[in-house]
């Protein structure tokens, strides 16, 4: 799929547009809200016109959601038991 939108100009016309290849490297910064205002504007203006990159961004959001369903690891019951008895036995005033 080739899109004519990969070189969209920023809204003010003086900023070069992002390519799709550049955009995918900014997705984490975008989702973590750490882009500058002008980077964010360029990002959003590309996304607004490029369905492939919109699909990519959605995939990343889904990826984060899937990872979020992984059960966190846990300490062993044995270690917890030992620590609880250390806690119990600690002198208090």
């Amino acid at each position: 799929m080739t899109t004519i939108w990969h070189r969209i100009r920023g809204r003010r016309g003086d900023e070069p547009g992002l390519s799709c290849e550049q955009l995918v490297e900014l997705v984490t910064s975008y989702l973590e809200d750490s882009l500058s205002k002008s980077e964010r504007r360029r990002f959003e203006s590309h996304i607004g016109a490029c369905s492939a990159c919109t699909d990519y961004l959605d995939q990343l959001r889904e990826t984060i959601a899937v990872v979020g369903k992984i059960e966190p690891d846990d300490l062993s019951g044995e270690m917890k038991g030992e620590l609880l008895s250390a806690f119990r036995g600690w002198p208090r005033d």
Partner: protein
Amino acid sequence: MDGTEETYAPPPGQAEVVAALRAGDERAFAALMDEHGAAMLRVARMYVSSRAVAEEVVQEAWLGVISGIGRFEGRSSLKTWIFRILSNRAKTRGEREGRTLPFSSLEGVDANGEERAVDADRFGNEGQWRSGPSRWSELPENRLVAKETISVAQTAIDGLSEAQRTVITLRDIEGWSPEEIRNALGLSETNQRVLLHRARAKVRQALESYLEEGRL
């Protein structure tokens, strides 16, 4: 942002937890272990050579929490304080093992390395998608919540570098803020984000291969 502690206000409920711990409330202590235990193992694992040593470090850190809670002054969150104790012990232990610290050599390598979020051959000469990503919302229902899909993500995470694995685990499984991660691991903002970016991109690739198998 190192100055945040000056204007620090403890999270709601923290004072009660600290009081319960000081009073010897075992349920409060057990809840705290459930809340932070796994992440402590993760963080410790970054500094030392094996899971077994990491477990020892975590145990030592908890003993430090037990003996130090009476002196906890509440100038940072309890979580920050616990992880500072942990990082200090893990660092000491790692140094004794002669291990180089995991992030010290990363700044240049991982941040500027050639690892790409998406294979270069997916893009044309001007950086446009050659074959665009598929629309996962069009997948059969439940595909993204299936156990098998989740285990594909888990396997992908297991295959990451230790640093990438730790960052994505803390951020996306344990739900830490980027700032909490930077503090516990002594990472720069850029490095933390680059590690997360690479990690998420690799998990996405693994999911893409898995979800799109047999659809062509």
